[in-house]
Structure formats: C-alpha cells, structure tokens
C-alpha cells in the first residue's frame, strides 16, 4: 500500500519538519515556543526512524523501539522543562529568554 510512495518523500517530510522545528527553536523568544520547536524536531526524528523501519527492515523492530524510547524521553523532558519554565516565571515574571539574561561577559 505504502509502496507507491517512495522512501525519499517520507524522509523529505521529516527533513522539512526538522528544519521548521530548528527555526522555531532558534527564533522564538518565548521559552515554551523554543520547547515546541524542539518537540517538532523530535517528531521528525521519529518519522525518519519509522520510515527506515517500514522500508528497509520491516521484519525487525529496531526503528520502532528507538522511536518509542524517544517519545518516552520527550515526555520526561517536557515535564521537567515546563516545571523549570514555571520556576522561571516565579522569579522573573516573564518567560522571554531575552529578558532572562542577567549574566554578561
């Protein structure tokens, strides 16, 4: 069924998603916005892995296992990161990373 779609197409979608996420992580000022960009990057990695699994080694599971581990870690990272952002908001009353910049040199 999926055979009619070449592997390159899927990889291109993943690459586009990765670059969009990277742009988000680099250009956003809001810490939550940066985190969203990073989540998009992780999703693109998962697309890559699942595509490699489906097209290149469909009777093994390495790609799937890797993707599930990445989802787990992404959940942990989001939980810790968002708690940290709330802590930042407590002491700074903002989540803009430009504003949160007291150390120079």
């Amino acid at each position, binding site marked *: 069924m999926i055979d009619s779609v070449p592997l390159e197409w899927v*990889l291109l979608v993943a690459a586009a998603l990765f670059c969009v996420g990277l742009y988000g992580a680099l250009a956003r000022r809001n810490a939550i916005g940066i985190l969203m960009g990073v989540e998009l*990057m992780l999703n693109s990695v998962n697309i890559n892995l699942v595509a490699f699994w489906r097209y290149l080694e469909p009777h*093994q599971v390495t790609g799937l296992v890797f993707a599930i581990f990445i989802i787990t870690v992404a959940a942990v990272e989001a939980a*810790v990161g968002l708690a940290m952002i709330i802590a930042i908001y407590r002491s700074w009353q903002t989540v803009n*990373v430009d504003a949160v910049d007291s150390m120079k040199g």
Partner: protein
Amino acid sequence: MPVFFQISDVPRLLPELLLLVLALLVLGSDMFERWGEDEESRFERVRAAGSLTAIGLGLIFLITLLQSGYVYRLPADAPQNFFLTIVRNLQNGGPVGDPVVGSFATDHLTMIGRLVLIGAAFLVSLLTLDYRPANNPGEFYALILLSTMGMCLMAAATELITAYLSVELTSIPLYILAGYFQTNTRQSSEAGMKYFLFGALSSGLILYGMSLVFGFAVASIPGGAQANDMTQFLRIAQATATEGAAASKLLTLGMLFIIAGVGYKVAVIPFHSWSPDVYEGSLTPITAFLSTASKAAGFLLLYRILVTAFPNLTGTAEIVSGFGGWTSLLAVLAVATVVLGNLAALPQRNLKRLLAWSSIAHAGFVIMALMAWASPYASTRSMGTSALIYYLVVYTVTNIGAFGALAVASMTVGGDTMEHLRGLARRNLGLATLLAIFVLSLAGIPPMGGFLAKFYIFMAAWQSGAWWVVMTGVVTTMIGLYYYLLILKATFIEEPASTEPVPMPTWMNATLITSAVLVLLLGVFPNLVLTTIDQVKVVAGM
C-alpha cells in the same frame, strides 16, 4: 551466542546498580529525618543525606576499584570460599571477561571512566557537605547519584539507543541541579533554564544524526537486517566498511549532527554559548560537577562513537594534503576552541566565569588528543588514547579542586570575583596555596599534573601530523598563563581589603587537600596511572 543482556550479566552493571540503590536509599531515608521548620533541623537533614551519599560513593568507588582489578587481581588458584567467590564473580564482570555484551561494554575504557566519574562525584559530594543546598536535600543528592549513573553508562554504551538514553539520564538531573536554588534564585533558575533549552536542542541534533546513521546502516546491509542490532556501533562500522561508504554524504551528515550534538554537551566552540552563564549561575560544587564529570563522560562517549562506529572516516589532519573525515573537523574545532576560549577568559573579573572560559579552552586540548587518529599507525593512535584519558583524569581532579577553592572563598569571603580574592594569602595561607596548586596545574606548569597532560597531548597530535594544531595549542597556553597568573597576583601580592583571617570548613578542606595531593602525585609520578591507562590501547571490538 547471546548478544543481548542477560541476568548473569548483572555483575558487569554492578557500579551502576549500586548507584541506583544508593540514590533510592538517600531519597527514602530523607523521609525519616526530622522535618522541622527551623534552620538547625534543616541543616541536620542536609547533613544526613550528604554524609550518606559521600560514604556510599566512597564504598562504590572501592568496589569498582576491586572489580577493575587494577590494584589487586585475585589469582586463578585462589581457594574457594564464600568471600573469594564473591570477589571472583565481581572481577569476572570487569575488563577481563567478554568485553561487549549487547549494548554495553565493560572494557578498560569503561572501568577507568567509571573510576574517574564516581571519584568526581565523591569529591563533589564531600564539597557540598559544608554547603547548604537549601531545600530538598534528599532529592539533591539523589539527582547527583542518578546523573553519575548516567555518566557511567555513557562511558560504557556501545549502541545508539543506550548511548542516547544515558546522555539524557546524565543531562536531565543536571538541568535540575543547575537550577537548584541558591541564595540568588533568579540567577540559578536562569542558569537551569539556559542549560535545559540548549541541552534539549542538542539532543534533537544528536537524535537526527543517529537516525540518519541508523538508516545508512540498515540500507547498506544487503537484504535487510537479520537481527535487531543495527544500532550497535560495531554494526555501523561494518556498514561503513562497505565499498564507497566513506564517500557517502548521508553518513557524513549523520556523523556531523552527532558531533555537533555532543559538542554542545561538552561545550566546544561554536557550541559553547550556554556554558559561562550556566557555570556562573549554578551552585559552585555543581559547577565543579558540570565542568568535570559531565564533560569527561561526554568525551568518553564521543571517543567511543568516533573510534568504534566511524573508524573508516578518520581522514587526515594535515593542512596541505586536503581535508576530510572527522579528524579534520575536530582539528578546526580544537583550534577555534583553544583560541577563543583563552582570549575570552582574559578580561573576566568573575572567577567562576573565568574558569568557565578556561574549561572551554581545556575542552579544545582534549579534542586535540583525538587528532592521533589521523595517523594510520596503531602506536600513535594508542598514544592518543592514553593522552586523552590521562588529560581527563588530571583535568577532573584539578578543576574540582579549583572550583572547590572558589566555593570556599565565596562562602567565607563573600564572593568570587578577583577583588574578593585580593590578599587571600595573608588571610589564609593554606587556602591560597591550594588554589595556587590548582591554578598552576590548569596553566600547565611543571611539576603539576597539568603540564604532563598537555605535553602528552601535544606529542600525540604532533606525531599524527597536526603540527599546526599543536602550534596553536602552545601559543594559546602562553596566553592562558596571563590570566592564571592574574589570579595568583591577586591572591599573593595585592593588599587584602581586611586582615581578618578566613576560616576553612573541614570537609571542603579535606576535599581540596585530597585533590591537591592527587594533582601533585599525577604530575610527579605519572606512571602510577599511565600503566593502567595504557591497557586501554584499543577499545572493545576494534
């Protein structure tokens, strides 16, 4: 042949398991302390968790030392009794056994890495005993232990998934620890958030690289993979050994992403921008931990990935005969790192920031040791390996000492800028002498360990043909001398602001003296550790 992890492999994982058990013990025992609101009972809780951690880490260090067999190896004809059987099983899980089990190697590199990392955690936990990590001491120490566990796994991982998970297990506790509230809540939460955001970005980069490398490996084994092991470094090396693989852009791109991602973690220029702020904003003992153990673990992982997964892409470091492969890339990074790191350190007045830039520069020197792989000769390569590990050992001990001395100064004098250190020698000669030992070792003055470490690295890089990297290294070492001597000038020559003597907290004193003795021993009798380090020669499976 079982390629995956089995229950009989538990002794191989013993140090990591013990760290986990200790972490749970620290978390659990905190519940049975007196949870008073007053300052005294809070300090009691901190002390209890801290001492438990320090004692436990000391024991784990000794057990790991016994397992490695570097100081005592059980003879083969030893009698069979209960204790000796335990020791025998323990040592069979060490570097003597079959080195690679599935996603995990227990070769000499792993064992030395574990000793360095657990030792660093031990010294840091001693440093924190006099410090007061205000709230939640149980969680504070448990996170240090879990992070150490992740670092040990990083040094041992021989497979992409394990490597990635152990990188995260190292980093996530460190994000929290960097943001651990000290007196200045704003600054420490800022440090935590910066570290977290850069770390999250870098793990995205590592992962994208890993996925490309994985795809390359799966695609280049004809007929599809036969087993679930296409993420192992050795299988990747096998895939890259096929015809034309070295020229594959896909593989190179994946490797670049991995190097960039790990480069973020170890703060190599141009991926360094988080590190001065994070080092300045964190609690000083945590800064010591970040700048030594987490860097050492990152370098061990980088070394293992590059050497076992990409041995066919090494390239050359000679500037004339053309670039290519990872040694050329690392040569450029090393030059940029030592030059910019040392220059940026020059105008710093805050000593934590100064040492942050100096440790960026030191990361550049460590990378130079990897230049040895540009040479086709096994002898040069194994020399590079020894130089790398020796440098990491010396640097870890020295930097923990240096940041420890700063922690004492900021605790007792009230700050860690140059002005605060003025005339320290007249207020506390012992502290000033210890600081001088560490600073001289960082600068690379004989007879401290730092001198020999730099010397070995330059020698290995020179033999591999990277003479221009070595020249830059020597010149920047001279530049670095300037700001290290500025610290000594402030400490010994300038007039103190007050002549009031500075007290010296007991446990910090013990840590500093231990580190100083180690720095001197490593510098004067390098063979104490070099004979052990030389056993690494080749990494498991190569």
